[in-house]
């Protein structure tokens, strides 16, 4: 077989979709129909490995699998299915995974139609020059409307969908036909196996025996076991131990990967930080002249302080973060201390979802109770002396008199909603300091809204507010656009006269009063009465802008304590003592971890 013929029998593709439109189920069905995995063997939604992913119905990290398929034309094909993360926080990773493909299946729910992430993902696929094959899914549902959805895809995204497959991933309806379409409608990869080596890294994970396992798409050239390779962004070189492909149940070594192939490389690489997604792997002996386009280092967008609820577990928290970082180069952390919370870590995340997932994994997989401080974006502060600071922690925010310009990140937000909720959502965006850009009717029932929104408004329960105002129907996608000067202030919270550093945050001047009042009220509800009265104050500099008081405790007594009561009372007091141990001592005031968390969940409705 010539190299050209070899390439003709490969299809590299992704499945992209809005959340819950059935991407993972479709992947399972394709695996089953290509007999890569028998039904009996198949674990539900094989591609999503982590428990958390399965529960949330989202894919956090890309995975890839190689499938074999005997087509109706009698030829045997190799299909490489590259899964992509399905959330706005992971846009860059999605784009790299898509660049590893030549085509994409765009899955659209036959009952829901095009949603914000359908659009966002479709645009990413178009940007990656992929051939897109729309797939209408959930045809088993009585409310499926295939013609309407096909029309939407044509009108909104502008790609032909007239004869696109209409399937049910759940029941298996028309899956055979879909796989045939992958062969006939998606292009084969191009590339020159004799050219200097260029592999695109689209994912990697750490394995304690193999070191880092790097997932690549070979664009040009050939890579073999024993080759010396170079990572073009860092110039670091390694000796390849193994190359191979990703089977449904593990890695299959194969000796060499050639242009057009998707596979893995191991090279005794110690940390995944060295193998950045989007980087180019080339040969050290015969390097490519230039790297593949589009690489950038991943930058966290959201920062928060993470502390163990029990200070004694600081070491456990550090170990846990190190373990998580082994497989998540986007997770950043460094030690920090808070007067209020003691020793902890400043952590950087791609976005709120990324942060929430990490918090959940810390609690679930590592059994840690943690306290997080209010999430913060990175502010760019220009001082009078010309120095520019990037501030991701309110504690480091300079004094107002030193600041020349304070700038905050602004995102381009794209919201798709049924028309009846437009008013409420526009109010919400207005309230979150959004700048209206435009509004487009998708059809008579749905609208696409474009806003510029400060990122720090989105990281405060914006998703929740959007969902509650649209009864769950609105969808959101956003990307960072620029930094804009803004009237920002630092709000401090004082308990019994002492500033609680962990509760400070940066807020727009106009929002300061409202938020200060809200926080003071929340704290009042969540701080138990103590032996003395506790003033709660919110201040900008020395100016108090909100105040509440926790009244002194009046009653904590057992009226009767006679013979039979003593044992019971002992247990009760012991329990009380245990409860106290969970409290954080802030100066003279005791505050529960729950109170910190309550402050973060301000429902501003």
């Amino acid at each position, binding site marked *: 077989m010539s190299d050209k013929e070899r390439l003709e029998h490969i299809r590299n593709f992704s499945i992209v979709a809005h959340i819950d439109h059935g991407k993972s189920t479709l992947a399972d069905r394709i695996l089953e129909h290509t007999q890569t995995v028998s039904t009996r063997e198949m674990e539900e939604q094989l591609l999503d490995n982590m428990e958390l992913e399965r529960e949330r119905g989202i894919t956090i990290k890309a995975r890839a699998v190689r499938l074999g398929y005997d087509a109706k034309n009698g030829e045997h094909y190799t299909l490489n299915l590259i899964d992509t993360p399905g959330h706005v926080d992971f846009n860059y990773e999605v784009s790299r995974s898509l660049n590893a493909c030549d085509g994409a299946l765009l899955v659209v729910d036959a009952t829901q139609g095009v949603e914000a992430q359908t659009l966002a993902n479709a645009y990413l696929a178009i940007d990656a020059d992929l051939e897109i094959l729309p797939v209408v899914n959930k045809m088993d549902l009585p409310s499926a409307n295939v013609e309407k959805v096909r029309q939407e895809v044509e009108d909104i995204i502008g790609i032909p969908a007239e004869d696109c497959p209409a399937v049910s991933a759940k029941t298996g309806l028309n899956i055979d036909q879909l796989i045939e379409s992958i062969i006939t409608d998606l292009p084969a990869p191009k590339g020159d196996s004799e050219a200097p080596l260029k592999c695109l890294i689209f994912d990697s994970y750490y394995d304690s025996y193999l070191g880092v396992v790097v997932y690549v798409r070979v664009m040009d050239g050939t890579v073999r076991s024993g080759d010396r390779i170079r990572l073009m962004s860092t110039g670091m070189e390694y000796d390849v131990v193994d190359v191979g492909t990703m089977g449904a149940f593990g890695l299959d070594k194969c000796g060499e990967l050639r242009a057009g192939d998707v596979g893995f490389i191991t090279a005794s690489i110690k940390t995944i930080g060295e193998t950045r997604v989007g980087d180019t792997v080339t040969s050290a002996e015969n390097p490519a002249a230039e790297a593949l386009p589009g690489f950038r280092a991943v930058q966290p967008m959201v920062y928060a302080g993470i502390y163990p609820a029990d200070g004694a577990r600081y070491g456990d928290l550090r170990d846990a973060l190190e373990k998580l970082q082994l497989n998540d180069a986007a997770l950043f952390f460094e030690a920090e201390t808070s007067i209020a919370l003691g020793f902890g870590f400043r952590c950087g995340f791609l976005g709120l979802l990324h942060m929430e997932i990490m918090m959940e994994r810390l609690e679930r997989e590592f059994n840690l109770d943690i306290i997080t401080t209010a999430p913060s974006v990175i502010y760019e502060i220009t001082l009078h002396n010309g120095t520019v600071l990037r501030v991701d922690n309110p504690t480091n925010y300079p004094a107002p008199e030193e600041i020349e310009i304070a700038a905050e990140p602004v995102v381009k937000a794209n919201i798709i909603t049924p028309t009846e909720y437009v008013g409420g959502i526009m109010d919400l965006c207005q309230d979150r300091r959004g700048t209206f850009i435009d509004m487009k009717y998708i059809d008579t029932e749905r609208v696409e809204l474009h806003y510029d929104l400060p990122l720090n408004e989105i990281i405060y329960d914006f998703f929740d507010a959007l969902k509650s105002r649209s009864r769950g129907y609105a969808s959101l996608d956003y990307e960072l656009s620029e930094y804009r000067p803004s009237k920002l202030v630092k709000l401090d919270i004082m308990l019994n006269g002492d500033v609680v550093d962990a509760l400070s945050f940066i807020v727009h001047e106009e929002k300061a009063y409202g938020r200060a009042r809200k926080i003071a009220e929340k704290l009042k509800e969540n701080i138990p009465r103590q032996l*003395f009265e506790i003033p709660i104050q919110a201040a900008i500099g020395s100016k108090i802008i909100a105040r509440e008081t926790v009244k002194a405790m009046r009653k904590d007594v057992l009226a*009767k304590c006679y013979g039979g009561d003593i044992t019971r009372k002992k247990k009760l*007091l012991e329990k009380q003592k245990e409860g106290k141990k969970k409290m954080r001592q802030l100066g003279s005031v005791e505050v529960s971890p729950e109170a910190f968390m309550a402050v973060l969940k301000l429902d501003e409705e």
Partner: protein
Amino acid sequence: MADKLNKKRLGIYIHVPFCKSKCAYCDFYSGNFSPDDRAEYLTVLEKHIKRIAPSADMYTVDSIFLGGGTPTILGGEGIALIGNAVASTFSLSGDLEFSVEANPGTVTHDDLKIMRSSGVNRISFGLQSSHDSELKMLSRIHSYSEFLSAYSDARDAGIDNINVDLMYGLPEQTVDSFAETVDRVSALSPEHLSLYGLKIEDNTPFGRMRDSLSLPDEDSEYEMYMTAVEMLRSRGYRHYEISNYAKNGRECRHNLKYWDALEYIAFGPSAYSYFGGKRYGYIGSLTDYCAAVEDGREPIEYCEEITEQDREAEYIMLRMRLRDGISAEDFYSRFGIDFEEKYRDKLNKYISIGVMVKDRDRYFLTDRGMYVSNTVISDIAEFDA
């Protein structure tokens, strides 16, 4: 007699688990048993007392307390029988305090006279309120006027040491209505008053209607407490324990045993003893209790050996209930530990907050401090986990 002076002192508690009907707030073990059951219980009690008494032959009993339930359901004769059972088996002190709890609705003039002549010298009336509406709400079976006549009957029978139980923090109760009760009752000049804040217990009618009860809030209940503290102090009562007030020298000797961590032996279902370094409780079922005793078994349901660390923690827990608090000297002689040194930081914290006072070597809670005593005690006492 000389022998008696050297003997250790002991309290006897006898639980009488009979009530005509359950009150809405009460979770003590009691029930409406038949006269035959009551008669059988007296026989079993006699047997049990007789069997246990020899283990206390090195002790002199200086207090007997009949509680319930409603001991007065047994009538004067029944109570006399129990008194005799104790007197004929234990060695009694010459200045014995013999208390019986009485329900104003079940006790008669004759009962009181018989009780007095059989050695009872202290009556504790469960009144709870001077307002019939509040009594009804609590499902008490008596009125305030019935209490008044029972009270004068007791005086007439020669009882010169009377306690009256009152309650506050009741549904719909106001600071004024409670103050009125305290005012009326203290005007009768009983030697002792117990004022209990209502605690809603699970497995009581109040517990089951917890959410629909309109209870005074924390601040009002505190006001009730402080109003009573001040009124009774001005009328010559000493606030000697969180819930107890007495005229000079009339503190309840029996109850002080609990708070001084002194020894007592108890009889009856659900009753707890503290004796020989152990705290143990009998099973909370009349039938099972009687069956075990008849069988020659001890009906023990719970028993713990008190460790040295718990002994110290319990002492702090119990003594801090008292106005006399903890004397560093007493503490040292009991435990060989310097109380002030060991607990200095915490003691100073509570003194600075104003809930504790130091007077010479003695540390005690203020009136306000007593009402937040769980916070203070749970912080100071280190139980053996």
